[in-house]
């Protein structure tokens, strides 16, 4: 416990991020890269400050569509995952359909959503939902499908109904899978809503970047990108924290086994 008591591991993400921006800045200056190819971080920061009201408004819009789409994905994903894990019949019937559905690039669905709902918030929400719910379903169903047979035997021998086994064992057991999948799902939801905003919206970061591009305002395009990254990291961090809070036992018991 001497003077140099700095936790380098904790600091590392910040140091590396700062390093990236410094190298970026130096490269742009050293090679005199024109702004419309790659603006320097300082130039992007200027743009962020200059256009802050618009950036803030559009960031909130993207956050809103992502969150609503994500919540829908959680509700449906959890429900469908439990249904699939519950019944082999539902599993056998739905699984191929879901694989097929998941194989469709979601950007191809956006035009259809626009035909149905017009340009605006709804296609973005639905795209976020469609892209995010698959990993939730798969993870919840996996958690349910991997109940130890001995555990099931012990309970069934005591007269447990399928419902008891699900409530006492299956669902708690699939929670680490579920919360783990939320990190992936929120990132995907974000991708989905930005894709839809880029193609078919009149607000949101995706739309803002497209508009900036058509006006050759390259620093603003990059400002949008940076904001997307910041939002993405923030949402991921919230989900990671939630996972730790809700299913700490899974991590600790793995630690104990290791």
């Amino acid at each position: 416990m001497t003077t140099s008591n700095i936790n380098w591991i904790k600091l590392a993400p910040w140091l590396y991020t700062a390093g990236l921006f410094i190298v970026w800045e130096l490269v742009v200056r050293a090679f005199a890269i024109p702004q419309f190819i790659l603006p320097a971080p300082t130039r992007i920061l200027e743009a962020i400050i200059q256009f802050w009201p618009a950036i803030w408004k559009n960031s909130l819009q993207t956050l809103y569509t992502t969150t609503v789409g994500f919540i829908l994905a959680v509700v449906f994903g959890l429900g469908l995952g439990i249904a699939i894990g519950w019944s082999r019949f539902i599993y056998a019937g739905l699984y191929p359909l879901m694989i097929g559905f998941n194989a469709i690039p979601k950007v191809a669905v956006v035009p259809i959503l626009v035909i149905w709902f017009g340009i605006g918030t709804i296609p973005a929400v639905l795209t976020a939902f469609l892209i995010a719910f698959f990993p939730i379903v798969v993870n919840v169903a996996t958690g349910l499908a991997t109940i130890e047979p001995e555990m099931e035997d012990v309970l069934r021998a005591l007269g447990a109904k399928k419902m008891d086994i699900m409530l006492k064992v299956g669902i708690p057991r699939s929670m680490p899978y579920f919360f783990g999948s939320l990190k992936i799902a929120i990132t995907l939801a974000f991708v989905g809503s930005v894709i839809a905003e880029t193609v078919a919206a009149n607000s949101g970061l995706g739309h803002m970047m497209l508009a900036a591009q058509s006006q050759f305002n390259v620093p603003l395009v990059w400002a949008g990108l940076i904001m997307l990254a910041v939002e993405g990291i923030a949402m991921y961090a919230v989900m990671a924290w939630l996972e730790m809070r809700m299913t700490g036992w899974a991590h600790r018991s793995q630690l104990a086994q290791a």
Partner: protein
Amino acid sequence: MTQPLVTINDVDMRYGGADGLLAVEGLTLDIAKGEFAAVVGPSGCGKSTLMKLVTGLYIPQAGQVTVAGERVTKPVSIVGMAFQNPTMLPWRTTLDNILLPLEVVDRHRKRLRKHKVEYVAKAEKLLETVGLKGFGEKFPWQLSGGMQQRANLCRALIHEPDLLMLDEPFGALDSFTREELWCVIRDLHAAQGVTIVLVTHDLREAVFLADRIFVMSARPGRITKERTVPFARPRELELLYQADFNDVVHELRGNIADARKAA
């Protein structure tokens, strides 16, 4: 002669439909109330299948299984089970794991909330019996393998089953812990008058604990030999080093070798 607690009469059990794998064939045995029976036999001969037939997890295609005078057609909740793998739920404390059967068995689940204190006291007493006093608040992953297996026994006993089915419960433990748990089981059997069926690979374990040992043939499993163990109770670990004990173990080893060859 009182009526036996468990009767298995000419039972055939086939896995996976009409032309599936025949696991046991013409299986016949009975177990008296209060008896300690052990089942030994070559690997894959249908010992676990026998357990599952008695507990009503599987229903045989032919023959009858009767427990406590009733034909088994669905799971029988007067049975407690423990397997080699303790399968404690990691998100519950050891105490809550032990109370789990009470949340399932019909006659207890309705009383559980009101009489929680009484049940917790009972669980704690069981923990004390198996040498885990004060570990109830720990999570299973904070316990060693042997401690988890002790907790597993408590879970099998909490609803006061008349019949305790143990499927190689000590298989994964070191020999000291195993001998210690033999004594725990021996004392439980002596104190509570519960009927116990123990499946094991360890012949010394079978001879030390059981009143009667059933030897099964290789698949499809049948009882080829029934051996009464003559040693008086209470038995001490000393018995393991006596000549007549080893004679019985040798004799059984011979029987199993024959059973394997016969296949």
